[in-house]
Structure formats: structure tokens, C-alpha cells
């Protein structure tokens, strides 16, 4: 009797695992990519992804079939990142919104020259430089830009798992792109690509 019970439970788990393998495992590259960008360290990214998948499997019976599994996994990863990873680092990477605001004010859009947007002003940049510019963004801004522009999540989905209003998602995204543009423009300028007649502003 006990044996049958254990055996049934094992069969159930195995069935659950098969579903998990089909639904969740294919998103591992996206999660790893996000973890790597958030932690900036391969070992930490490995730990974060591993923890996310183990937690996800433990709660997979609660996952509503037919809903967005990738978003569900990202939500688990976000919680692990906030609850576990950030607690372990010496000083959690908090964003000083005043600094960001000051930075933003300095690059506010007072430039109307649009020629350089139409040229491929960033064609000279290396992929590593683009990646570094993202990594250098303050965490809150980095999160939304990765989720939106790289992973393709909607504002509603981002708001849901970052736990902020949709208006804040939009605002952070707006500023993140502006900061990123400014940083990439500086890189391009260093490489002598821009002609000096245009400006990052």
C-alpha cells in the first residue's frame, strides 16, 4: 500500500518533470542572459539560474498551464535575485534617483539635428561596447531595458514582475534608452565616427 502510494507520487513527479522540460527548460538561455546582465558575474548567474529552476520545479504544479511560462520564470528569478542575491552583496545596488535625474537633465533633448539618427552612427561600435553600456546602467533602468528591448516583454508584464506601475516602466525605459544613447554616442565619438556637427543631446 505504502509502496503504491510512493510509486504513484513518483509517476506524478515524472509526468510533471516531462511538462517542465517542455515548458520551462527552453527559456534557460533567456534567464541566463538576464542573470548575467544583472549580476555581472558568470558564477553568480549560474547560481541564480539554478536556484530559479529548482524553485520553479517545486512550484510547477501551481503554474497555470497555457499562461506565459517565460514571464513566470522571470518573476521567480526576480524574487530570488532580490531576496537572496542582493542580500549577499555588501551593499545592494540602490539607484540614486537624484543622480539619474541630474544626468537626465544634462542630456535633455534640446538638439534638433536628426541627421545623425538616420546614419548608422553606432555601426562602428563593438558588441562588447553595447553590452558594457547596458551593464553600466543603474540597476532599475538596466532591468526594464533588458526585459523590454532584449526579451520583448510588454509593459504590463514588466510592471507585474518588477512590481512597479506601468507608468514607471515607461518612464524608466524612456530614461534608460536616453542614457544608453548618450553612452553609446560617446563611444562612437571616441572612435571618431561622429563628425562633430551632431550632438548626443
Amino acid at each position, binding site marked *: 500500500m505504502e509502496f503504491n502510494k510512493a510509486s504513484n507520487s*513518483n509517476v506524478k513527479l515524472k509526468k510533471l518533470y516531462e511538462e517542465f522540460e517542455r515548458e520551462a527548460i527552453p527559456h534557460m538561455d533567456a534567464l541566463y542572459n538576464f542573470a*548575467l546582465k544583472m549580476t555581472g558575474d558568470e558564477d553568480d548567474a*549560474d547560481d541564480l539560474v*539554478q536556484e530559479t529552476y529548482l524553485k520553479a520545479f517545486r512550484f510547477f504544479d501551481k503554474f497555470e498551464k497555457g499562461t506565459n511560462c517565460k514571464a513566470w520564470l522571470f518573476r521567480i528569478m526576480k524574487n530570488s535575485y532580490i531576496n537572496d542575491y542582493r542580500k549577499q552583496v555588501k551593499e545592494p545596488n540602490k539607484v540614486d534617483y537624484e543622480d539619474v535625474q541630474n544626468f537626465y537633465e544634462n542630456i535633455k*533633448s534640446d538638439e534638433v539635428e536628426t541627421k545623425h539618427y538616420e546614419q548608422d552612427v553606432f555601426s562602428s561600435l563593438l558588441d562588447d561596447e553595447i553590452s558594457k553600456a547596458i551593464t553600466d546602467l543603474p540597476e532599475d533602468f538596466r532591468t526594464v*531595458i533588458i526585459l523590454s528591448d532584449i526579451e520583448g516583454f510588454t509593459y504590463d508584464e514588466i510592471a507585474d514582475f518588477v512590481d512597479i506601475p506601468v507608468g514607471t516602466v515607461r518612464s524608466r525605459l524612456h530614461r534608460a534608452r536616453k542614457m544608453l544613447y548618450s553612452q553609446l554616442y560617446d563611444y562612437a565619438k571616441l572612435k571618431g565616427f561622429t563628425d562633430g556637427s551632431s550632438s548626443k543631446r
Partner: protein
Amino acid sequence: METFEEITSYVDNELKDQLIISRISLLIDQDCMCKAEYLRQSCVKELLKSRFCKSKAPDYLIQNIISELQNYINSR
């Protein structure tokens, strides 16, 4: 500022109200500041989409996770 953020939503196809979409579209066509903002936002979005190198999860990580999951199942 509000308008510039609406341009961000416009670029992301996140505006639902057809009237706002038309208003933003018109502004982009007629106002050079709005056009610059539109081009800047689109430029970064496109750049990340086309040039950002996505890292693949290493094989050893995939194997570790699968093996941890198998251990978990077997221990139940």
C-alpha cells in the same frame, strides 16, 4: 516630458488609444524635437534588438540543473 514618454510608448507599440496614437504620430511628423526623440528611442531599441549578443546558458549549467531536478524527484 509627458509627450516624450508617450513617444516611448509609441515606439513600443504600447499606446492603446487611437486618438493618442494619431496625435503622437502627427507630432513626430511636425515637431523636430519630437522627431529627434522618436528617432533616438527607435535607434536604441533597434540596436539592442539587432546587436546585443545573447549569451547561451553553458552546457554544464543545463546538465547541473537537470541532474539536480532528477535528484529531487528520486528523493521524493
